[in-house]
């Protein structure tokens, strides 16, 4: 896409983000302001802010890309991202707010009275936070590269520096304004172009999305190959190529028989209208009918679609409550009742947003099928307006989605950074002073930026899914058992955190480093939640039972604080 409006739009979003942040700085004076906005944020603001913070690169770009590749089975991603808030509401929201703790390690220490458990939690907050930050910064680099041709490192550094500076100077109070603004920007940036895309689709005769044929190039299409790629040709196709194909320099017409072909970086391929799209090697070539049928791909695990689907459901439904940047938001509600109402509103806001990525994913197969060749389906949202609508209108809408994508990176990274910096400043360095928070924010931002600049090839959606699995295998059991079961002990919690955390983190590392891909082991490592979540719960319960003598003596009083409504007045001292 070469939209002349994209760069100004991105700059505008960044400047407005900084401006709203600066406006908020005037209110941020005390440590409490920095960490939890002094707990005076209303449910409406808070729900917009939570949603704005939550809708990351994975939601804005990744879901559409996954839908385009894998079809019906990956609709569970957005459903799970939303349902995670229902689990949060049912089991965590109000009691967590009533616990009166600032951060997740605070909660662990208040509930179980163990300093060591607190440090362990702090470690997992930082791990999950950084795991989630790296793909955000990478997404920023790739987006800026896609829409302006800028080098990868520039986008990553821009987002990294803007977010770090904003968080370090304004803390969370300003973040609340920024995040709330960015939810509405992201919704607009996705909904308005989607409306026009649907109009174009209808005007063009409402081509079937689920017919019995593979995607074809709608018009003569020129494809720039930016990264070496191997494609799998199923039907013979003729094209014009300029570059190194199958190890030989080619400049002219070419015809490909079925089989595998290697294309080197820098090649330019031109396909005629109506040619079937050769798919990147790692993708199965699906006809649209198969693509539209559930359990046909399992989101990349066609051998075990049912297991992969349920494991994904478990990770997303239960992982949301364990994401540190989501949890920290609940402390900003004035009371437990407001925490519930906030969560309800969040479910509404997310439900509206997630109607749209599916539209992009499906129409992407019609209008930008070359992404199936390059494998970079994450770019579908960015490229569709220009490809399907064209002209100045398409360029303007393209600039709008680029701005929305940048808002996604900025807001999620801000939220992650606040929680990581909050934990670092209260648990690792200093004792929660404003100066310590600023130093911690700098450290929290620089580490993932360094990682993002080193590792270019991680897939955004995959890493984000794995972060959910780690969160579901660690903080979900800690929160659910800690809130509802009197028998939990510090030893049991620590053992469960370690068991679930090490297993899921191990699976993450092996998958990211490109380990086992096929068979049972492959699906288990890529979708570990179905195994690691039950293990974490089981270990927590069994070890707590074995160490029952360590149940805190004041567990009864803590339970009262967690569950009694504020109107009974038990929170005056705790809060």
């Amino acid at each position, binding site marked *: 896409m070469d939209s002349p409006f994209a760069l100004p739009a991105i700059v505008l979003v960044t400047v407005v983000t900084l401006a709203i942040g600066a406006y908020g700085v005037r209110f941020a004076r005390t440590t409490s302001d920095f960490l939890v906005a002094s707990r005076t944020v209303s449910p409406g603001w808070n729900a917009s802010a939570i949603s704005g913070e939550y809708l990351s690169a994975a939601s804005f770009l990744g879901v559409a890309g996954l839908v385009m590749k894998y079809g019906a089975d990956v609709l569970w991603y957005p459903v799970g991202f939303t*349902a995670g808030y229902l689990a949060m509401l*049912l089991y965590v929201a109000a009691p967590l707010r009533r616990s009166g703790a600032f951060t997740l390690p605070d909660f662990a220490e208040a509930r179980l009275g163990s300093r060591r458990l607190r440090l362990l939690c702090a470690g997992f907050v930082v791990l999950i936070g950084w795991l989630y930050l790296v793909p955000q910064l990478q997404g920023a680099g790739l987006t800026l590269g896609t829409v302006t041709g800028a080098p990868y490192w520039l986008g990553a550094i821009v987002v990294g520096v803007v977010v770090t500076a904003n968080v370090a100077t304004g803390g969370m109070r300003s973040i609340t304004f920024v995040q709330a603004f960015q939810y509405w920007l992201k919704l607009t940036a996705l909904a308005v172009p989607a409306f026009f895309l649907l109009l174009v689709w209808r005007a063009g005769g409402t081509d079937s999305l689920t017919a019995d044929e593979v995607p074809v190039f709608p018009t003569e299409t020129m494809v720039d190959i930016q990264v070496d790629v191997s494609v799998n040709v199923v039907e013979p196709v003729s094209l014009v190529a300029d570059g190194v194909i199958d190890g030989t320099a080619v400049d002219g017409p070419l015809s490909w028989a079925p089989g595998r072909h290697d294309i080197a970086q820098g090649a330019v391929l031109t396909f005629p209208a109506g040619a079937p799209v050769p798919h990147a090697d790692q993708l199965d070539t699906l006809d649209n009918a198969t693509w539209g049928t559930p359990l046909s791909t399992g989101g990349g695990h066609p051998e075990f679609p049912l297991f992969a689907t349920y494991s994904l459901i478990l990770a997303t439904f239960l992982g949301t409550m364990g994401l540190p940047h989501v949890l920290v938001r609940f402390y900003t509600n004035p009371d437990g009742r407001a925490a*519930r109402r906030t*969560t309800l509103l969040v479910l509404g806001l997310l439900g509206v947003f997630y109607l749209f990525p599916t539209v992009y994913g499906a129409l992407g197969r019609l209008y930008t099928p070359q992404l199936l060749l390059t494998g970079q389906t994450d770019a579908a949202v960015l490229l569709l307006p220009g490809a399907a609508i064209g002209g100045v209108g398409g360029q303007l809408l393209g600039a709008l989605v680029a701005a929305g994508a940048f808002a996604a990176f900025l807001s999620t990274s801000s939220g992650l950074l606040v929680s990581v910096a909050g934990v670092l400043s209260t648990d690792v360095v200093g004792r929660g002073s404003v100066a310590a928070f600023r130093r911690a924010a700098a450290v929290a931002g620089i580490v993932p930026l360094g990682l993002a600049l080193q590792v270019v090839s991680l897939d955004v959606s995959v890493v984000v899914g794995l972060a959910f699995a780690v969160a579901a295998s660690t903080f979900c059991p800690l929160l659910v058992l800690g809130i509802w079961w009197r028998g939990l002990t510090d030893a049991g919690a620590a053992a469960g955190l370690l068991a679930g955390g090490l297993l899921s983190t191990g699976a993450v590392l092996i998958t990211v480093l490109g380990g086992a891909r096929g068979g049972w082991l492959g699906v288990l490592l890529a979708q570990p939640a179905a195994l690691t979540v039950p293990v974490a719960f089981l270990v927590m319960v069994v070890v707590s039972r074995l160490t029952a003598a360590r149940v805190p003596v004041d567990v009864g009083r803590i339970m009262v604080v967690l*569950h009694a409504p504020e109107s009974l007045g038990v929170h005056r001292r705790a809060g």
Partner: protein
Amino acid sequence: MTERSEGNEPQQPPERVRIDVAARRRVRVDRTLREIEEQTRVGEVLVQGLIRAQLSVALRLSAVVAVLLGGLPLLFAVAPSLSDVEVLGVRLPWLLLGVLAYPFLFTVAWVHVRQAERNEQDLTDFVDST
């Protein structure tokens, strides 16, 4: 506006009744606070009842979601022909997962908020009446 009055005077206009409740709450708060700080069994038993009620609401609604939403992959596995059914030009799985899942989740959440708040109100009323 004026002093709290525990006895209801029939002539009082409605708005004065409301303010009376708020004032009465302050008395009740102090009493309950004392109760809980003294670690009396009564306070804990009261809240234990609330915890059980809240947990049962959460578990029941989880079961509804597990069956109605969580059952879909199994349903599509045992009855693949359902995937070909079209409603309003959209195939059933896409309609269910792409659109209807969201209002469903919101409705479940709404029911939960109502029931959870009612459970809390019940406890508050009970403390009030004792």
